[in-house]
């Protein structure tokens, strides 16, 4: 048993009135003198209340809880809150933890949080209803597939991979309309502009070996909106000195989802990553169990996807940490809406 768990056991016995006067005095003196010990006691107290609410106490402990612990009137309110929380949690449908939601397709992003009560609900349906639902789904997907294929043939727009990320030192400006100044590159621009000069130059990356390909678009011309995911590469850096060199994520009104590629060191052996999206020190969303993947242009990356409506015109920072790796890497960027 660890020192910590010995403390917990002692505190639990204290709260249930199982200690001698001398032991009780020692505990209370520590509670007065040590902040951490008091925090631990609060956690143990909450757990004890939860155990009572969830009927996880033995009969003796339950009796001691009633006789001793609940003698303090303010603990009644804690117990009632614990019971209310239990009622609320039990009334909620089972939810897959969105912290582990991990998008896999760059063209589709699941909205948050990921509610998946569907299959558990379907289990209670009759086989006929299940078959009917399956049939409707198949017909629906076939129709969607035909629409997609016909639209694709008409427009013949290739979907191309984005280009390698320019180094941070090569990209000093945050202005999104100048291609040579961009650290992140928008890839949802109309294809009709590619290769020309003027306005479409913003999508070029002059130093790239594959500059023509690098500036290709992944949406059809005229904003038909078939592909609505914009992919950006966010280099590491928290830009604490200001926004001047912060990468710009430029989002059009047609962009439904944003994919962010976060380069990670090749020698980082982490199997899984945890990422937190923050703005003004407020956590907006957290992803867990993200995995690294190989990008043929950039190398090892972690890909994150999120709905564009989640992003507003402001600066953001993504804090990425490999599981088991204490080092946290920051990726700062700012959002511009077109």
């Amino acid at each position, binding site marked *: 048993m660890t020192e910590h768990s010995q403390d917990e056991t002692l505190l639990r016995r204290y709260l249930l009135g199982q200690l001698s006067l001398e032991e009780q*005095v*020692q505990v209370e003196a520590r509670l007065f003198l040590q902040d951490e010990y008091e925090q631990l006691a609060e956690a143990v107290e909450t757990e004890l209340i939860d155990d009572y609410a969830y009927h996880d106490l033995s009969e003796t402990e339950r009796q001691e809880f009633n006789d001793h612990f609940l003698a303090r009137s303010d603990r009644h309110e804690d117990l009632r809150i614990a019971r209310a929380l239990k009622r*609320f949690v039990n009334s909620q449908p089972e939810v897959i*933890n969105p912290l582990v939601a991990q998008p896999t397709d760059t063209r589709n992003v699941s909205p948050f949080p990921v509610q998946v009560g569907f299959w558990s609900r379907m289990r209670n349906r009759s086989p006929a209803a299940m078959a009917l639902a399956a049939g409707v789904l198949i017909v629906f997907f076939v129709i969607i597939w035909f629409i997609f294929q016909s639209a694709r043939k008409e427009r013949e727009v290739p979907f191309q991979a984005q280009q390698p990320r320019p180094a941070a030192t090569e990209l000093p400006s945050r202005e999104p309309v100048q291609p040579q100044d961009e650290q992140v590159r928008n890839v949802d621009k109309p294809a009709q502009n590619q290769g020309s000069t003027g306005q479409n130059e913003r999508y070029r990356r002059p130093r790239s070996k594959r500059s023509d390909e690098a500036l290709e678009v992944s949406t059809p011309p005229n904003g038909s909106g078939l592909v609505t995911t914009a992919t950006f590469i966010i280099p590491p850096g928290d830009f604490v000195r200001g926004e001047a060199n912060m990468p710009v994520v430029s989002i059009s009104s047609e962009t439904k989802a944003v994919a962010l590629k976060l380069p990670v060191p090749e020698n980082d052996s982490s199997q899984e990553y945890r990422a937190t999206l923050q703005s003004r020190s407020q956590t907006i969303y957290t992803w*867990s169990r993200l995995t690294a993947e190989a990008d043929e242009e950039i190398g090892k990356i972690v890909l994150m996807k999120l709905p564009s409506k989640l992003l507003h015109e402001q600066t953001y920072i993504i804090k990425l940490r490999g599981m088991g790796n204490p080092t946290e890497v920051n990726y700062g960027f700012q959002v511009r809406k077109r």
Partner: protein
Amino acid sequence: MLDSGFVKTDSQPIRPVDRSRIVLADPPPPKEEWVLTPESFDGLLAWLDPNRDHAAEIYEEIRSGLIKRFRQLGCQDGEDLANETFDRVAKKLPQIAPVYKGDRAPYFFSVAYYVHKERQRKPVVKSLTNDDSSSEELPDPNPWYDNDDDDRDDELLDECLKQCLERLSHSNREMILQYYRGERNVKIKLRKELAAQMGIKVGNLRLKAQRIRVDLKKCILDCMEAKAST
């Protein structure tokens, strides 16, 4: 050397300049509030140590420790609270002395724990004044949980809980709902999984959940109070 404010030989109460202590030579009748008398103070010193000088040193040591800690805890009136602590010990001494066998100093800190808790629970109405009535018990500011109308209160509580959960950040709300899902072994297993998903230890997860619970409780109490007053 003992605090000079503690011992007074004439009958007129005198408040020391540092407001450390008043001892009444002529104690009020029993129905009045209990005050430290020279006899009870002597008894307190004797309990600390049979040697009076040594007892006085121990007393001063404990007192300065109490004042320092009360101030660390944000109590500006640390001296008053230390005095209150000694008063309570002296008052209980007849019952304690025969049964308590442990070290004396922790006993004072143990009593100070309750003094501080009570201070936290009730608003300070007359801080740093010379009016002793400030130590009178105040009505509980949140009496809703003593209401017998449980069903109505539960509805109100559920409503407030729901509101307060919605006010939490998305990640905190999801975390707390995951944390309290399941029972017994299932709950333990789910918590381990949740901690692994978040890349933290189960102990840290519990402290994080505890912090959210504290915020949640405060929000719920405020909500209940607001609804009760309308």
